[in-house]
């Protein structure tokens, strides 16, 4: 099909011969707008057919046939002593093993990521619950926030500054 459509230029030769002698004096151009039914759907059909056949069905068939003939499915066997199988070695067909190895994440990784995610979400949930309870109590008692400790006390800094000034007066620089 790809071959035939490239031979279309050869069809152009036959239209030039069929012309009447009286009106064949080429004095001006006579460009005609040929009113034809739309060939859009037919062209689109050919495009889609080429696309799905040449880029879809044929490569997939070739890959799957080679995988089945030259590699073949695996044989179920006991796990040897002291050996930890990789996560892609739990699948049978070579294409599935390939996809599991190179495309997808390992199931253990996904599992541990999800565990970490729900742990953090649970921490946030507990914080939100606490803040909500505090707000409720403030509303109930017409109260306000008061922190029960001061992070830094300036008193000790003042004491040590005074001691340092006194030492400087004794020792000099």
């Amino acid at each position, binding site marked *: 099909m790809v071959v035939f459509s490239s031979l279309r230029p050869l069809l152009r030769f036959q239209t030039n011969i069929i012309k009447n002698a009286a009106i064949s004096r080429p004095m001006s151009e006579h460009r005609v707008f040929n009113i034809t039914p739309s060939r859009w759907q037919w062209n689109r059909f050919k495009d889609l057919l080429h696309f799905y056949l040449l880029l879809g069905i044929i490569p997939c068939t070739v890959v799957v046939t080679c995988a089945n*003939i030259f590699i073949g499915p695996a044989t179920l066997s006991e796990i040897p002593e002291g050996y930890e199988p990789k996560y892609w070695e739990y699948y049978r067909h070579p294409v599935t093993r390939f996809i599991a190895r190179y495309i997808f994440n390992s199931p253990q990784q996904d599992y541990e990521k999800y565990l970490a995610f729900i742990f953090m979400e649970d921490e946030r949930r507990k914080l939100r619950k606490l803040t909500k309870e505090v707000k409720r109590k403030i509303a109930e008692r017409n109260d306000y926030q008061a922190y029960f400790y001061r992070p830094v006390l300036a008193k000790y800094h003042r004491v040590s500054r005074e001691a340092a000034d006194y030492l400087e007066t004794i020792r000099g620089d």
Partner: protein
Amino acid sequence: MPEAEPRNIVEKFFNTVGYILQAPTVWVREKIVEPNQKSYPWYHQKFRRVPTIDECYTDDVVCYYEADTQYRRDKQVDSEILSILRDRFEDCVMYEAPDHLERCTPLHKQYEEATTNWFTKYGDLGAYHNAKTCYMKQKHRLLWERRHGPVGTGMKSDLSE
């Protein structure tokens, strides 16, 4: 089961037709496919046991999730075991056709017992259930048994002497 010897010309004819239709596929498989295939292993994944739902603290979401996934795996395993027992019983019935009532009774008893146990543990929980609802079902069953005796012996009324 090995192929039985053809008893008459009709069976011989059908055997020959089957052989003719299968021969190209068998030839391709034995001469082209199998010599080129490599042999390499695949394994059956064994999961470590994690603490079950009754050993988790109530605010430990991670423990909940691990117990839940373990519960789902165990449920799949139990369902498969039940399928195998069911297949065994049905194969026995089909094979022993006229006198299956006597020959298949032990398998039938085994299958019925397994079904009852499966239903006691997993049945009637609904589609959207998890390990916690199953655990609560067990709790309710034990409470009911404490009040009314074993399941299947009827409820005692509220009037107690």
